[in-house]
């Protein structure tokens, strides 16, 4: 009764201050959490990229000197190029090979299910644990890969020990780790495509290639788009493979952005300001790329 008189006695659309504030009060805990642990660290990172600091003494403001320094250095520019190269191969090959496997293994037979499970295993194993295995597989003297190459009459490679093949070696390990996971996700997406669509396509005289590009791919585009974004951001943040296998070498052959940041901050005389500046550059690159993806591809992604 009281609410009724209340609502009658005031103009439509009028809200008390408490009613206006109420929604914000409800989301306040989440906002505080986000602000404290996500927004603040990012802002702090940006601020510190304009400071000179060695982790011990008080930081001093240096303006854009950090950026000026890193962009003038060849290693940093190389690190960007290497990171992009790595990302192109890992994302491009990773997604296309995974899609091929997912289509190939899409019939649910015992062998296919087993194969997918085995392919998924690298994803659950920590990379550090298998570093030794890969060190043997890629051993330049008696490694498995060279044995295979020799078997086909091809010369041995030095893999991670040579500047020419080190990046390729890292990409191979990254693909080995990523393909099983991608295949699993794409496989699941393909399973959700209604069977009748393919039957209708059979009646419409569509061949396998047409069926893939006109039905399967558009139907799994949301999952593919998600994978593309996560795979790209993941590749730009590559670190563990480099740290374990090559330490950025030989020379600077596998120097990538995050490894560069790590070295500036923790290996070379605590040049933390450079590390922060490089981190901001990395963040901007990933942000721009993601925006570009959304801009170009979101129209072609089909949501049910």
């Amino acid at each position, binding site marked *: 009764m009281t609410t009724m008189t209340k609502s009658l006695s005031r103009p439509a659309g009028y809200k008390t201050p408490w009613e206006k504030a109420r929604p914000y009060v409800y989301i306040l805990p989440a906002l505080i959490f986000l602000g404290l642990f996500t927004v603040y660290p990012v802002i702090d990172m940006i601020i510190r990229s304009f400071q000179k600091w060695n982790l011990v003494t008080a930081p001093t403001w240096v303006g854009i000197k950090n950026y000026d320094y890193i962009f003038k250095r060849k290693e940093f520019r190389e690190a960007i190029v290497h990171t992009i190269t790595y990302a192109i191969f890992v994302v491009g090959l990773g997604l296309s090979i995974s899609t091929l496997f997912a289509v190939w293994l899409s019939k649910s037979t015992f062998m296919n299910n087993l194969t997918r499970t085995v392919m998924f295993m690298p994803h659950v194993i920590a990379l550090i644990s298998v570093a030794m295995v890969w060190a043997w597989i890629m051993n330049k003297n008696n490694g498995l890969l060279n044995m295979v190459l020799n078997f086909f009459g091809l010369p041995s490679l030095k893999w991670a020990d040579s500047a020419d093949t080190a990046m390729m070696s890292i990409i191979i390990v990254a693909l080995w780790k990523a393909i099983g996971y991608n295949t699993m996700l794409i496989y699941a997406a393909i399973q959700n495509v209604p069977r009748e*669509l393919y*039957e*209708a396509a059979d*009646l419409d005289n569509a061949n396998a290639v047409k069926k893939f590009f006109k*039905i399967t791919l*558009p139907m799994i*585009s949301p999952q593919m788009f998600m994978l593309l974004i996560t795979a790209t951001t993941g590749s730009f943040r590559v670190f563990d493979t480099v740290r374990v296998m090559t330490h950025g070498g030989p020379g600077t052959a596998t120097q990538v952005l995050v490894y560069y940041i790590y070295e500036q901050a923790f290996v070379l005389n605590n040049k933390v300001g450079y590390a922060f500046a490089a981190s901001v550059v990395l963040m901007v690159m990933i942000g721009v790329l993601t925006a570009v993806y959304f801009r170009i591809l979101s129209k072609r992604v089909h949501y*049910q």
Partner: protein
Amino acid sequence: MAEIRFEEITKKFGDKVILDHINLDIEDGSFTVMIGPSGCGKTTLLRIIAGIGPQTSGKVFLDGEDISGLPPAKRNVAMVFQNYAIYPTMTVKENIEFGLKNNKVPKDERERLIGEISEIVGIHELLDRKPGTLSGGQRQRIALARAMVKKPKVFLMDEPLSNLDAKLRVSMRTELIELHNRLKTTFVYVTHDQTEAMSMGTRIILMNKGVIQQEATPSVIYQDPDNLFTAQFIGSPQMNVLPFPDEKVRYGFRPEKVHLTNEPGQYFYTRKGHIVTKEMLGSETIYQVRYEGNSVMIKSLEDSFEQDHDVYIGVKKPNILLFDEDERRIRPDDARYEQWMSKL
């Protein structure tokens, strides 16, 4: 236009026999409805015609040509799926055009066909829309248009109306009949709905457990069933079937063939019963009457009889059907007919 012939068609999934040595002719230009309870094999048979679920053994002929081994696209058939199977990522036009493009139909010919068909089906203004924004009835039309545009010899339809609401279903039923009259093409239509089968079909194929029970016109199926299954499957409420005392032979009569009277009438079959329930449905009333340990349903235009009262039921001789111990019909020309009738 095309006639379809099945020769010894058998379909197994593993050890399970879905279709058991089917031999059947589907007439050219007919509206043939395949009906039966779920799992009876009707959809399987339809998919065999389409070539999307090949038979285990046996042959299919279309206009005398053996199409058993042909891929679906080479069979000159089109199908409307139960859930329409419209490509959700393509516009309506692209959906209709997809098959034409794959068949390398030239562009102006495609445009002409799409214009013509979308006019007939009434989807002209929808051509640039995505299927996700359309209603069930509109999708149904698109599925029809996609099938029609290929000018197939045979239309296959797998429960195409089952996803529509009741009202739309009735109006689409009429439209499909009109469409069939206009195209004069062979329609093969699968349904589990006897009203659809009776109202649309020129021929009905009634199936159960992978075997054809009867193939005939709707009125023959209804009036002159070959066996007990057919007699009981078609008709609502279903036919009353009662056993001869201590025998395996049974007799039956349809609910609407029973006359209710307050005094015993001059009928071949007369019994005194007790009305247990009464359902007034408007133009007709359904009574449940119990007598001699039997319970029968009676559909009457008369609603003056009251529940919990006694009543006389009467059935004329031609309206009583006999079924032997194997559930096959005993027709009047059968030697056993009079012998069993006399026991009533």
